């Protein structure tokens, strides 16, 4: 499981490389260390609704190769958000992911915020799958898109999340 830290003022969440030392060394007397929580030890019920609807839509996708890709991504997102919650990070309220199947059998996942939209476009060829982000004037009229194969899914999601997180 990846480890994260949240900057106190900005609420931005940073990824901690396993090569880095633990910034908050703790002496464990009882139970597990806060930084070493494992996804299978606790379920994140508060955020299960985050991906449920999109999960069901992707389960019905005509092309299950793409549907499986979507569910793998949703699992990772739920795991990451769950680990944020377990670490006590300030996340605000997060809207659920929506999923849509396009005419060409690709699946789009979209996360809709008041002033921004973040999404993933999943293609039968995973090399062509990508992400996108757009915001209105309130969040600076940002627009960006890219492939998931470059930076890595988890780091890409973390970057997108920090942009749209209402608490950040």
């Amino acid at each position: 499981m990846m480890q994260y830290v949240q900057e106190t003022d900005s609420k931005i969440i940073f990824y901690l490389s396993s090569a880095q030392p633990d910034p908050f060394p703790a002496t464990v007397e009882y139970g597990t260390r806060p930084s070493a929580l494992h996804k299978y030890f606790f379920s994140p019920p508060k955020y299960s609704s985050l991906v449920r609807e999109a999960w069901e839509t992707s389960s019905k996708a005509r092309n299950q190769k793409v549907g499986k890709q979507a569910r793998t991504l949703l699992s990772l997102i739920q795991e990451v958000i769950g680990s944020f919650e377990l670490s006590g990070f300030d996340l605000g309220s997060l809207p659920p992911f929506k999923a849509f199947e396009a005419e060409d059998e690709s699946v789009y996942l979209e996360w809709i915020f008041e002033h921004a939209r973040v999404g993933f476009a999943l293609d039968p060829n995973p090399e062509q799958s990508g992400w996108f982000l757009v915001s209105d004037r309130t969040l600076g009229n940002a627009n960006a898109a890219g492939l998931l194969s470059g930076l890595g899914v988890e780091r890409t999601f973390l970057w997108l999340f920090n942009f749209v997180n209402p608490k950040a």
Partner: protein
Amino acid sequence: MNLFLFELDKETNEWKQSINWEDDEGAVGFTLARKKDDGSFSYKCGVARIPRAEIDKIRNFPQVEGRLTYNRDVLDDNQYHGNLLLDQAVTKPVRGLIASSLALACSCIIYRNQ
């Protein structure tokens, strides 16, 4: 965004999204009253209004670089008809970006009176 995903026109090899231009006050009522061959309304969920300036803003995104265009394509039964057109080579993530941008740019959705 799913309402704004373009469909591939196999004849022209372009991604296409059918629209109606709001030339006058009658355009919205005309669009809402459109019916399919079976008599049911074509746009049961209403129509979305998007300012053309917002489309022009999307056209200037660095990822789009003018590959999004629009035209007027008057039909025998629809004087307002036109299309948003997208180059076939535009990648899937950028198509998603455009669809999400159009959804975000929607100034309002107008519903038909029951």
